């Protein structure tokens, strides 16, 4: 290595050092530390004592952990596809060349600017079983349905009833779909016009053009939004935490893995156990992301390939 090379290397290292130091201190060390502490009995204030895989063995028989894992996977299984469908549907509508398009785009994007905590408080009241706006709208609809079918279905007590609580959270999170809409919109505007023109000449209708042109072309965008949704859904924390006042919801129906991790670390002083939950959460996200990557090889179309 010449003197000049060494100088260049040092200069380069110096330039990336703010990021490198930040990464080592705030990502690499916590990651490695979590892995080590997950093998310890550790309360943050007493010295960590190595106990091997005991935390993982305890997790395997901890019913509350399995409830939290089930709730998290349930939430992800419905929130991700619903989020994608709603965001894509809105993006397609906002892509039509109609008057006031800019205004509509702004209105759809605005809710995603609302901080998560405010969103949670707002929806806490929207979903109130007695006084909430959602049931005010739902009650007359259910009245008509009950009249026709002769049934007696009441509007749900969304957040107070374990059967509906997770759906309440899913609807709340859907309200912030604006970010994904913007990304979809950018993808839709990148679809080459000449493909639509060719399809028009061939007599394709809107649905055929959507299935055979739009969706394949924007499949990398769908894939990106899905991965982001997957990671975000499995880490869901702020909305249910605020909506339940830091609790678990009725019959622990709103206890998610991230909440259980937080409770163990900061409420129960089981930092080692919390680290083990963190490692499991990391592995779940990693495995599902890898599965999504594998799936993308067959279903995602890259024009450059």
């Amino acid at each position, binding site marked *: 290595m010449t003197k000049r090379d060494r100088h260049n290397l040092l200069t380069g290292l110096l330039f990336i050092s703010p990021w490198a130091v930040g990464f080592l201190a705030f990502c690499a060390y916590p990651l490695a530390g979590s892995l080590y502490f997950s093998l310890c*009995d550790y*309360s*943050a*204030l*007493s*010295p960590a*004592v190595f106990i091997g895989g005991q935390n993982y063995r*305890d997790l395997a028989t901890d*019913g*509350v952990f399995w409830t939290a894992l089930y709730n998290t996977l349930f939430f992800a299984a419905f929130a991700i596809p619903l989020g994608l469908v709603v965001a894509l549907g809105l993006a397609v509508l906002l892509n039509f060349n109609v008057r006031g398009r800019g205004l509509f785009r702004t209105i759809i994007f605005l809710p995603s600017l609302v901080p998560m905590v405010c969103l949670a408080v707002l929806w806490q009241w929207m979903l*109130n*079983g*007695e*006084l909430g706006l959602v049931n005010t709208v739902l009650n007359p609809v259910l009245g008509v349905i009950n009249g026709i079918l002769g049934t007696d279905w*009441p509007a749900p*007590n969304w957040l*107070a*009833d*374990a059967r509906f609580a997770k759906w309440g959270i899913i609807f709340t999170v859907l309200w912030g779909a604006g970010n994904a809409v913007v990304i979809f919109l950018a993808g839709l505007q990148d679809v080459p016009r000449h493909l639509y023109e060719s399809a028009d000449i061939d007599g394709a209708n809107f649905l055929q053009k959507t299935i055979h042109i739009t969706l394949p072309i924007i499949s990398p965008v769908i894939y990106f939004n899905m991965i982001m949704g997957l990671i975000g859904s499995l880490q869901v924390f702020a909305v249910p935490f605020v909506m339940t006042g830091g*609790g*678990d919801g*009725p*019959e*622990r129906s709103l206890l998610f893995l991230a909440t259980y991790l937080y*409770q163990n670390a*900061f*409420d*129960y*002083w089981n930092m080692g156990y919390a680290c083990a939950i963190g490692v499991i959460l990391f592995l779940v996200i990693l495995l599902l992301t890898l599965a999504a990557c594998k799936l993308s090889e067959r279903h995602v179309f890259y024009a450059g390939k």
Partner: protein
Amino acid sequence: MTHDPPSTPPPVRTIWNRVLCVAVLLAGSGVPLQAGAGDGRIVIRYWEKWTGFEADAMRSVVDDFNASQGRIFVEYSSVSQIDRRLMLATAGGVPPDVAGIWAANLPVYAENNALTPLDGPARERGIHRGAYIPVFWDMCHYRGHLWALPATPASVALIYNKKMFREAGLDPERPPRSIAELEAFNGKLTRRSASGRLQTIGHLPEEPGWWNALWGFWFGGKLLEGDSRVTADSPENLAAYRWVQSYPERFGAENLLAMRDGFGNFASPQNPFFNGRVAMILQGNWIHNFIRNYAPPDFEWGVAAFPSSDPSNPQAVSIVECDILVIPTGAKHPGEAFEFIAYVNTRAPMEKLCLLQQKFSPLRECGPEFFQGHPNPHIRTFLDLAKGPGARTAPAVTTWNEFKSDMGNAVSRIWAGKAPAQDALGDVQKRQQKNLDRRIERWRRIAPAHTKSWREQ
């Protein structure tokens, strides 16, 4: 003879930049700081959990202390989520000198070596059990050591709406004296609409549900035997939670859910007790302040011991709580910190604090003028409950937060009709016994080092 060069004053823009930086840092910290003494006194940092008028009450006592002597200055901060912040600050080696926490959290802090034992300093100053209402002094102990001194105490009682009693044909000066009587009153106070929906109810164990884990106390039960055996599913606790279970069975789980969904926040005029939807609740002595702020002006309320299942039991049962002052491990000025804590625990400052916070004093001696000037007309009832033999505390175990969460979940399952009391409590018993065994095992590993260090301190 030399002269120092005259110092050039910094340009105005630089000064403003500095001021701005400091302001941004303070605003970012989220901690309202009181300015330091700036006169060479030893500054001790004090974090207190209270906000609002309770924080102002303690601030007033701190100001008195700062004015009373010239050696120590207490820098007082009202800190939210103090349990977590104190844990992290202590782990990071930068704890405050004094912290105000709840007594229920004392075991977990003490066992994790996060607090300084106060046996020695208390002995030197002649601070002893005889000066306190015993239950509050005992709450400051764990594993044979004194870790804290009381700040303000509380007890809970049956609070009832006299107007609703009168409208239901009940004597407003005659509250229920047994659980059976409470339920008889409940029947008279409950009103339904034509469609069968609950309009008002006499009593709901879930409203506000802050002590869902401890209903067993009124049935002669407890959650812990000694310091190692969990008794969540004891016959007495089973009786208590069968009583809780009787509510969804009698009124209908859906009906109760719908009714509770219409209740407003505790600190609001929509609180179901203040707006006449629930006639009897279990609440603490602080309720007076909320009634004054949120209930209608003509609201009439009475206070009595919450009735027990056994009317022949002369003990009036109550849950007592206390907020306490501790010195975290690693505090820079533990001696000065104790001097401040000891000052708060003298009669005049303690009475001032408790009067301003609308509570009773944890000290055994209390002057008649304290009661004459007290805004809460029922304060003596709460005090008597705390002094009585029926005063109960949450179990002093390091697993209390998990225990409480599990009991809350058990009640949630019972309430929804998903599990009978026996199954729900059986699950808590298994889980919490295992949990406690694990903590006892952890304690055995760390005990020798900790106890040696505590003895030396």
